[in-house]
């Protein structure tokens, strides 16, 4: 047959074009939360939804530092002003004019309904003390303010309202009219602080990324910054950083691994056309896999893709196994005949093994499973039915098939395999001594967000008093007032916890807006006109006030007695309403209100407080997510195990020779045991991801073992197999060691696990799956290096 490479070249171009077409059309996402399962009970779902879409998912903590305090203050003012005009932000606050003049007037007008007042506040004795204080104030430099806010409000209702609303800003101090972090020593160590909330919800990562980009550009456009730097943290920053890290990793992986594999194969086969053959087989696999995931899930996750790319580690093997086993000039059908059985078996068992993942119900795992199974089947089909003809026409075969002479020495190593069997037993012992594998269900440990950013976030959160929501009580009621009443009912319990130092404080809607009942009670407690005037007259006697000094006070009290009770709508818009909206909200017709404790030191006491109170549930967010992950992990196990059982059944049926099946299984079992031992003994806490990686290792190990285990081979074929499998092994090692360099811990963990695994798979496959050399003498007779 005349050699023609045109069909192969055409096939490669079509395959790559097809893959390119698919990859430009799938929806790629990098948000790690997409990989996690959603909660099942309503409370977990609500918390889940709030975490993804609520205030916490769009709040930004901002610091400005690196310049003298004066510069920072003016930069903060300019920046806040520009952000206030940016439609990307719902609000921005830098400590300046926390409460607008209008909002202050509104709070002042409603002070007697909003403020808690002592029972004796309006008695002559209490008023007398207040009046003395007012007189001092009027004699001081602050007299204009005392005239305006003090005289109409001798009992201090407005300060009480403001105290319950809090200044916001946590430990921030006001300097030059804006928030600053408490000073740290050293020059230029001042830090101005801001708080902002993005309009884009936590579910719209691209929009959040664009908003963050614009926010940084707005900062950079501020003139005369004198080296002031912008620090931004918060959930949106984390999500965007994680996504960017995943994307960067995937891009790096796909480019570098492709280059490495291409280089290695070109050197190994001395022909660039082998690459065309591999592209012809691998590209359709990736395309079909991506398409299948897109159709099933509506998007392809970056992690799936990153891992999928390294699936090259398995599917690239197929064309390499085919070409590597072809003798020079041999009809492709003959090569297929020799390797068809282990090849088909390996594809089948690997797909069956991975199919358990696809059905696991854990979104991330299911995606990976589906991607792997469809990719493997598609590549294998192309390799089995399309590629043989093409490589035959192109005349592709190894230029050097391996040296059967050196084979004897290598294969004689198998004499020691009974000793090598000690290694997996030791591994088992090691795992047992270490107390078995420890599971990790806190997926936060796998975040690709740099630790420095997480540390900065913690710092800014403390300085700004932003809630780091870990545990909370959540009450559900039919009406907003029902929520407020339930919160008022539990307030005393929370106060007691504060006194016992189980928590340092708490934040809830009822502190900001009292229930209707409380408001009515406060109105009822206000004295009538005559009583108040009488009390004032007695209290003011001899203090030197003019007769009409307290006219506005009496008028305001009279008005408060009859004004309608306030609801959330009556409160002034702006920062105050934003805070209340986060603490009192409606979802699906029911009203919810969290009570968010701060500085929790005794979570158990907190849990006891909420337990058993009607309408309340206690939520430990970390525990909830962990429980959800654990639940899904538990659910995934049987599926994955079922996949493995199916694979073993298929293997036994396909092999027919129980002894050989046993050898293959021994090789895989040894590989998995030692890999697991390596992970356990290095202190790695196992996640579902490690399990998935071990499945891949099993798949690759199966490949190797099956090819080593083929019966009755001559030395030349055995040498060819050894050499081809070594080629595959180096390829897998190259791609998976790249994963170890990733910034995404998820991918790094996969890389480390698989790297250890493939080396062991090669070693144990060679030692256990192959036959012991009984024909050492014969080998020398047929010795004929290719």
């Amino acid at each position, binding site marked *: 047959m005349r050699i023609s490479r045109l069909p192969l070249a055409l096939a490669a171009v079509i395959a790559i074009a097809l893959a390119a077409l698919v990859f430009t059309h799938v929806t790629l996402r990098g948000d790690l939360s997409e990989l996690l399962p959603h909660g099942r009970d309503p409370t977990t779902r609500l918390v889940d939804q709030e975490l993804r879409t609520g205030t916490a998912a769009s709040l930004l903590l901002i610091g400005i530092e690196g310049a003298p305090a*004066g510069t920072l203050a003016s930069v903060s003012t300019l920046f806040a002003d520009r952000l206030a005009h940016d439609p990307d932000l719902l609000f921005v606050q830098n400590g*300046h*004019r926390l409460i607008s003049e209008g909002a202050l007037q509104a709070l002042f007008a409603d002070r007697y309904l909003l403020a808690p007042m002592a029972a004796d506040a309006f008695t002559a004795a209490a008023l007398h003390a207040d009046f003395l204080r007012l*007189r*001092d104030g*009027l*004699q*001081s*430099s*602050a*007299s*204009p*303010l005392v*005239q305006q806010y003090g*005289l109409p409000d001798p009992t201090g209702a407005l300060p009480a309202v403001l105290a319950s609303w809090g200044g916001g800003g946590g430990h921030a101090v*006001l*300097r*030059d*009219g804006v928030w600053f972090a408490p000073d740290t020593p050293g020059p230029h160590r001042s830090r101005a602080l801001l708080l902002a909330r993005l309009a884009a919800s936590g579910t719209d990562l691209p929009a959040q990324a664009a908003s963050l980009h614009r926010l940084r550009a707005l900062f950079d456009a501020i003139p005369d910054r004198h080296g002031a730097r912008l620090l931004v943290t918060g959930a949106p920053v984390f999500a965007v950083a994680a996504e960017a890290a995943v994307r960067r990793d995937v891009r790096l992986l796909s480019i570098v691994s492709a280059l490495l594999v291409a280089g290695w194969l070109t050197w190994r086969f001395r022909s660039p056309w082998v690459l065309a053959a591999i592209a012809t087989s691998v590209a359709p696999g990736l395309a079909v896999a991506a398409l299948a995931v897109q159709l099933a899930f509506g998007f392809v996750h970056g992690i799936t893709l990153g891992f999928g790319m390294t699936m090259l580690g398995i599917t690239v093997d197929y064309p390499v196994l085919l070409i590597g086993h072809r003798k020079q000039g041999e009809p492709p059908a003959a090569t297929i005949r020799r390797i068809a059985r282990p090849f088909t078996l390996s594809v089948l068992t690997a797909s069956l093994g991975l199919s358990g993942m696809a059905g696991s119900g854990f979104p991330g795992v299911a995606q990976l499973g589906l991607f792997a199974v469809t990719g493997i089947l598609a590549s294998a089909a192309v390799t089995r039915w399309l590629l043989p003809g093409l490589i035959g026409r192109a005349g592709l075969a190894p230029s050097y098939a391996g040296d059967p002479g050196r084979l004897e020495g290598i294969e004689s190593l198998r004499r020691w395999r009974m000793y090598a069997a000690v290694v997996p037993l030791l591994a088992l012992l090691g795992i047992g001594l270490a107390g078995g594998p420890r599971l990790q269900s806190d997926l936060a440990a796998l975040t690709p967000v740099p630790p420095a950013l997480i540390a900065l976030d913690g710092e800014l959160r403390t300085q700004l008093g932003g809630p780091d929501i870990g545990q909370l009580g959540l009450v559900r009621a039919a009406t907003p007032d029902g929520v407020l009443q339930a919160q008022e009912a539990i307030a005393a319990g929370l106060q007691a916890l504060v006194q016992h130092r189980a928590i340092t404080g708490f934040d809830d809607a009822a502190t900001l807006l009292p229930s209707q009942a409380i408001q009515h009670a406060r109105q009822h407690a206000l004295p009538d006109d005559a009583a108040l005037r009488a009390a004032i007259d007695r209290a003011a006697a001899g203090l*030197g*006030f*003019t007769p*009409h*000094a307290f006219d506005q006070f009496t008028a305001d009290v009279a008005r408060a007695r009859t004004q309608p009770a306030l609801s959330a709508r009556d409160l002034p818009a702006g920062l105050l309403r934003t805070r209340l909206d986060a603490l009192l909200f409606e979802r699906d017709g029911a009203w919810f209100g969290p009570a968010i404790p701060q500085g929790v030191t005794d979570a158990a006491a907190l849990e006891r407080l909420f337990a058993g109170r009607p309408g309340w549930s206690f939520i430990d967010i970390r525990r909830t997510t962990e429980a959800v992950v654990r639940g899904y992990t538990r659910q995934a196990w049987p599926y994955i195990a079922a996949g493995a059982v199916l694979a073993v059944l298929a293997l036994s049926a396909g092999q027919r020779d129980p002894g050989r099946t046993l050898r293959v299984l021994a090789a895989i079992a040894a590989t998995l045991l030692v890999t697991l031992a390596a992970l356990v003994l290095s202190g790695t806490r196992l996640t579902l991801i490690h399990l998935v990686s071990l499945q891949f290792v099993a798949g690759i190990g199966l490949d190797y073992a099956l090819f080593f285990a083929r019966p009755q081979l001559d030395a030349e074929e055995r040498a060819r197999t050894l050499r081809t499998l070594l080629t595959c092994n180096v390829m897998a090692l190259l791609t998976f060691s790249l994963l170890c360099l990733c910034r995404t811990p998820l991918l790094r963990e996969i890389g480390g696990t698989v790297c250890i695994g493939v080396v062991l798979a090669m070693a144990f496959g060679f030692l256990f799956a192959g036959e012991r050399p009984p024909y050492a003498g014969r080998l020398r007779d047929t010795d004929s290096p290719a």
Partner: protein
Amino acid sequence: MTERRILLAAILLCLGSRASHASDAILGQIMQGLAGQPSRQAHFGMEKHVSSLAAPVLSQGTLSYRKPDHLEQDTTAPRPERLVIDGGTVSIATPGQPSRTLSLDDSPALQILADTLRGTMAGDLATLRRHFSVEENGGVDRWRIVLRPAGNVAAQVVRIAYVDGGGGDVRQIDIVQANGDEQRMTITP
């Protein structure tokens, strides 16, 4: 008839403008004199009439100013109190209590009062004119500057203010607030 009236008007206008030129020149001189002192320290006595108190409030202490924007009013009697206006903030401290600091930006009223005091001490006509129409009576040796609010915001705070002095010294500041409260500060270097 008409021509004579126009002529009269023109003469009056000229006179008026000459008078205002003269006043402006003197005002400029006064301001220069004030601006010539980089810092000052003086004793002050204050008499305040507050509408809600039957009797006037009397106090005294020391007043010090340092260019460009640091003003301290240290009251010693009847009750010790220290008021510092510095840059964009004002803080009030009384013994035994934490000092309270406010941003001038937060309150137009405070801003205007601070600008009135510091603008006078600094001889900073531009700052004064931001809130007031400034008029001068008298000569360079013995002068009186009258401040009338030039806008709505200023009018809500101050009804009228008089600053009396001689040469580069301020002798007395009278402020009548919009709510009718009056304060007179007498300064003796």
